[in-house]
């Protein structure tokens, strides 16, 4: 049985709502003297209910879990679910209101990159500074300084004050320091959200390597599900200060996305939505969009087709109106598009049209997507002439009740399964 590195038992953290600490000595003394004389609190707002009650907020409300040596745990949840509070408690920035956190080893917390970086000091000096703040001794840093500089890719500028660095260089250097810490437990809060993709990937690989080879334990908070999939082997989902899921990464992410998409509404009014350009919506304007035969836009790819209605108001006589849906993944990456097979109709001025359409989405893997609608026609050279393009992104979810073959993984294999490969024959 491998060693426990972190044990969290029924941890609670309470914050006071309203003016936290925004009190003056005078108020406090008045309050104290009123308390002694058993009179009403003079600093209380008129009409406010009891001063001490109803103004508290449980950022964490009884969270317990254990983490073993070498585990890489992702923590996900909505804003305000308590993720950052939890990390702050584990990294001892503030103390819990109730409960116990037991740690077995040094904790390096990266709740921000480049904590303690001083703009006037050079890159090298800041490596020492930042390293020391994160708990390294000078000797340790001496030993690692070359690795750190190499990893950061900024050797050329290492003796320049960091105030002259680009933000990318700054982040690379800062992250390199953190990546070379010797601490047994690493805590990261979305620090990888910055830096270019290649460097992000390099950091994730580095983290995974140290975790595998040295048994480093990692707690990682992110809203980016791809990095969670990439790095973690276990996921904890927090919601409203409580743990609601603990286990397999894919399951956890689906669980989180399930609660994230409170609902996928089935009907949208697009008349008043912004358009990217002024001309759009002038000649023809989309008024409504509706997913047909559905209460929520969740589709079983193996059985269902995306059926929808687009309603438009025509303000001009136009010919050969077409529609296109541009689909993005939940991370914002463009996945692909769907266009209507032929022109839908020719429009006449001041008439309303309801168009009923159907699309095959079976090539999309399970997950959450969004699309934007574009109504257009083609010019003589088949160039796209946009008439209307509401900026609202309409979400929908694809599930699979009868999966075939490998488990879908959007980062490794992409969001689209182009086709199934047929075996024609095989020879021995």
């Amino acid at each position: 049985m491998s060693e426990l590195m972190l044990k969290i038992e029924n941890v609670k953290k309470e914050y006071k709502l309203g003016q936290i600490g925004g009190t003056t000595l005078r108020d406090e003394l008045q309050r104290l003297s009123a308390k002694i004389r058993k009179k009403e609190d003079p600093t209380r707002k008129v009409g406010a209910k009891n001063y001490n009650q109803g103004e508290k907020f449980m950022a964490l409300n009884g969270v317990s879990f254990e983490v073993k040596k070498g585990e890489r745990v992702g923590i996900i949840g909505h804003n305000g679910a308590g993720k950052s509070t939890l990390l702050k408690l584990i990294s001892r920035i503030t103390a819990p209101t109730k409960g116990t956190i037991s740690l077995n080893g040094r904790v390096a917390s990266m709740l921000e990159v480049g904590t303690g970086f001083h703009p006037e000091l050079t890159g090298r000096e800041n490596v020492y500074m930042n390293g020391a703040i994160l708990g390294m001794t000078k000797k340790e840093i001496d030993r690692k300084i070359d690795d750190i500089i190499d990893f950061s890719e900024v050797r050329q500028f290492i003796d320049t004050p960091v105030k002259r660095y680009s933000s990318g260089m700054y982040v690379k250097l800062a992250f390199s320091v953190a990546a070379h810490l010797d601490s047994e437990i690493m805590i990261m809060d979305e620090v990888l959200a910055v830096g270019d993709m290649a460097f992000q990937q390099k950091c994730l690989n580095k983290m995974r390597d140290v975790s595998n080879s040295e048994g480093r334990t990692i707690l990682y908070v992110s809203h980016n599900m791809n990095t969670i999939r990439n790095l973690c082997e276990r996921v904890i989902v927090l919601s409203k200060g409580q743990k609601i899921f603990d286990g397999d990464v894919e399951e956890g992410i689906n669980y989180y996305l399930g609660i994230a998409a409170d609902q996928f509404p089935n009907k949208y009014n697009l008349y008043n939505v912004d358009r990217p350009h002024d001309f759009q919506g002038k000649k023809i304007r989309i008024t409504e969009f509706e997913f047909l035969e559905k209460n929520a836009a969740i589709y079983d790819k193996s059985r269902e087709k995306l059926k929808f209605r687009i309603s438009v108001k025509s303000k001009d006589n136009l010919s050969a109106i077409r529609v296109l849906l541009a689909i993005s993944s939940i991370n914002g990456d463009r996945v692909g598009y769907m266009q209507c097979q032929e022109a839908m109709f020719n429009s006449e001025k001041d008439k309303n049209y309801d168009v009923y359409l159907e699309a095959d989405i079976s090539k999309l893997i399970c997950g959450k997507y969004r699309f934007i609608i574009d109504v257009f026609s083609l010019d003589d050279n088949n160039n796209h002439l946009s008439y209307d393009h509401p900026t609202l992104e309409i979400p929908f979810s694809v599930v699979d009740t009868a999966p075939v073959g490998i488990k879908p993984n959007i980062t490794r294999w992409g969001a689209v399964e182009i086709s199934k490969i047929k075996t024609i024959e095989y020879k021995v």
Partner: protein
Amino acid sequence: MAELQKFKTVITSKHKLFDLHIKETWQYRDLIFLFVKRDFTSKYKQTILGPLWALIQPLLTTVVFTFIFGSLAGLTTADVAGEYVIPGFLFYMIGNICWSYFSTTLTATSNTFIGNRATMGKVYYPRLVTPIATAFSDLISFGIQFLMFLIIWAVYVISGGTSITITPMMLFIPLIILQMIVLSTGFGIILSSLTTKYRDLAMLVSFGLQLWQYASPIAYGLQLIPQKYLTIYMLNPVTPVVTTFRYAMFGVGYFDIFYYLIGWGISILVFLIGLILFSRIERTFMDTV
């Protein structure tokens, strides 16, 4: 078995009266050193005179004091009536560099939590590291100023303005400096803990220090204080530090072991109260600061 496993660190909602992480702070000694270096270098970055500023400030203050309090107001620079009176310039200078250490350290330390919240809110290191680093980096300035004082004193001696008597009291000087550190840091960390909640105190510090200076024998000799108020006056913990410092240096002046020990008592008491408050506040100050 996991159930029986011992953990190295346990964080709970409770805390001990003295939870100072002395051992941990020692592990972070390199950080203290780096903070001292950073304070010192960033203070004089982009200044033409650099660390010379550490000399100019007390020098000019002393010149002004010598002129205003010495020549114009004609306040005495003797701590004890009838004794040999040391040259005013030396008298004011030693008082000023002591006071300047006391007030800068106190001010800087009282700002520990508020000034460092950006760093402290993102990463844990023993919070005591910051006031310790402040005390040290100010001690460097004090050292430079003290050296300048010694040089000026030597000039006075060579030109026959005064004489030096080596007394065993000179061995006391490190102890007096230590008392000065303990006292200023003590008051500083009390204020730093309280200002996380009551910002009023931050206003009070600079103003209060100004008044405090007049209540201490910096600009005048102790002789000026009427005998009947002397007991109260000596309860100001800065007074025994300054008078004993002068006594140890010049061999003349006021020294009373009783008041000196009371001064130490107050210093230690203040320091302990400071530590208790500090260890209490450091756990959750991020929620209120």
